[in-house]
């Protein structure tokens, strides 16, 4: 690797408006062919905004990585009703909602995008009340 005396690794970061995206670095010392060829795409998205909003930034990133899935529907088919509604501090967002493995319920994951305590309320509608609650 690098010479730690003449070229030490960076010790600090100076605040900067510069970003460099490392699109390729073939200098990993692992057992694959380093000079592989071919077309490789790299996608970026920029969204200017005013004041920083941690929840909006988080949702923006998630929305790009996990885009909505488009599915065909029948003519006149009604949309499914919402299982729940989240109210309260907008810093709290839903990061996943999926059926449990036994098919008897749903697993909901919430995330506080801010660095401060936040409270939110779940309105479950007709889906019943949560049976378990875990904090990570």
């Amino acid at each position, binding site marked *: *690797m*690098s*010479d730690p005396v003449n*070229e*030490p*690794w*960076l*010790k*600090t*970061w*100076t*605040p*900067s*408006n*510069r*970003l*460099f*995206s*490392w*699109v*390729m*670095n*073939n*200098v990993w010392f692992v057992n694959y062919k*380093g*000079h*592989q*060829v*071919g*077309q*490789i*795409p*790299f*996608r*970026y*998205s*920029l*969204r*200017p*905004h005013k004041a*920083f909003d*941690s929840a909006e*930034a*988080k949702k*923006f*990133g998630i929305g*790009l*990585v996990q885009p909505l899935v488009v599915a065909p529907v029948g003519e006149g088919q009604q949309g499914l009703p919402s299982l729940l509604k989240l109210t309260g501090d907008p810093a709290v967002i839903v990061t996943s909602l999926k059926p449990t493995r036994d098919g008897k319920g749903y697993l909901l994951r919430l995330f506080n*995008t801010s*660095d401060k305590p936040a409270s939110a309320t779940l309105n479950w509608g007709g889906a019943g009340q949560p049976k378990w609650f875990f904090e990570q």
Partner: protein
Amino acid sequence: MRSLKSLATNGLTPTNEWLTVKLDEATTGIASIRHGDPFDLVDATDSLGFNEYWYTGKDAANPRRSAKPVFKIKENGPLVASILVSSEAPGAKLFSREIQLTAGSNRVDILNLVDKNGSMRTKTCAFPPFQVPDGELRIDAWALMQPEKDQLKGQTRTFCAFSISWTSPIKRMASLGQTSMRHWSRRAKC
């Protein structure tokens, strides 16, 4: 959904109701991003360019950029406006950039395509410099963190993983302020 305004007369300025993006024929990068007001988010005075390709090789002190750009209007509304810039690039057979705006969306989408040749050297896409006075950088490492401020003392400063308001769904390695690849690529035998 509202439709896009037509492209500007020079053909290199896609515009919608939120954003105006100007491409620069001289530097091939993005010269300007305006968001509904006269303030420009891009510092066009920086010679590194915005969304420019840099081939750093083993020595980051002497990087080379893309050259001989060919501009093509790929989509011209009403829903999507995009410009494709194809260039020669060291370390690659071809380097292309597609800058895209979508009607009703306040974001700029960039698709960079590297047709990689057999070189083993390092390639970098530069996004310097945002012109945000006293801007603060936050990295989405699941929880948001600020470089230096939220880092452990012994953690690396040479590179970082990210996903932020400037976000990259595919590539998640970046360095800040300077290219620092030489720190580990110097002795690569390639």
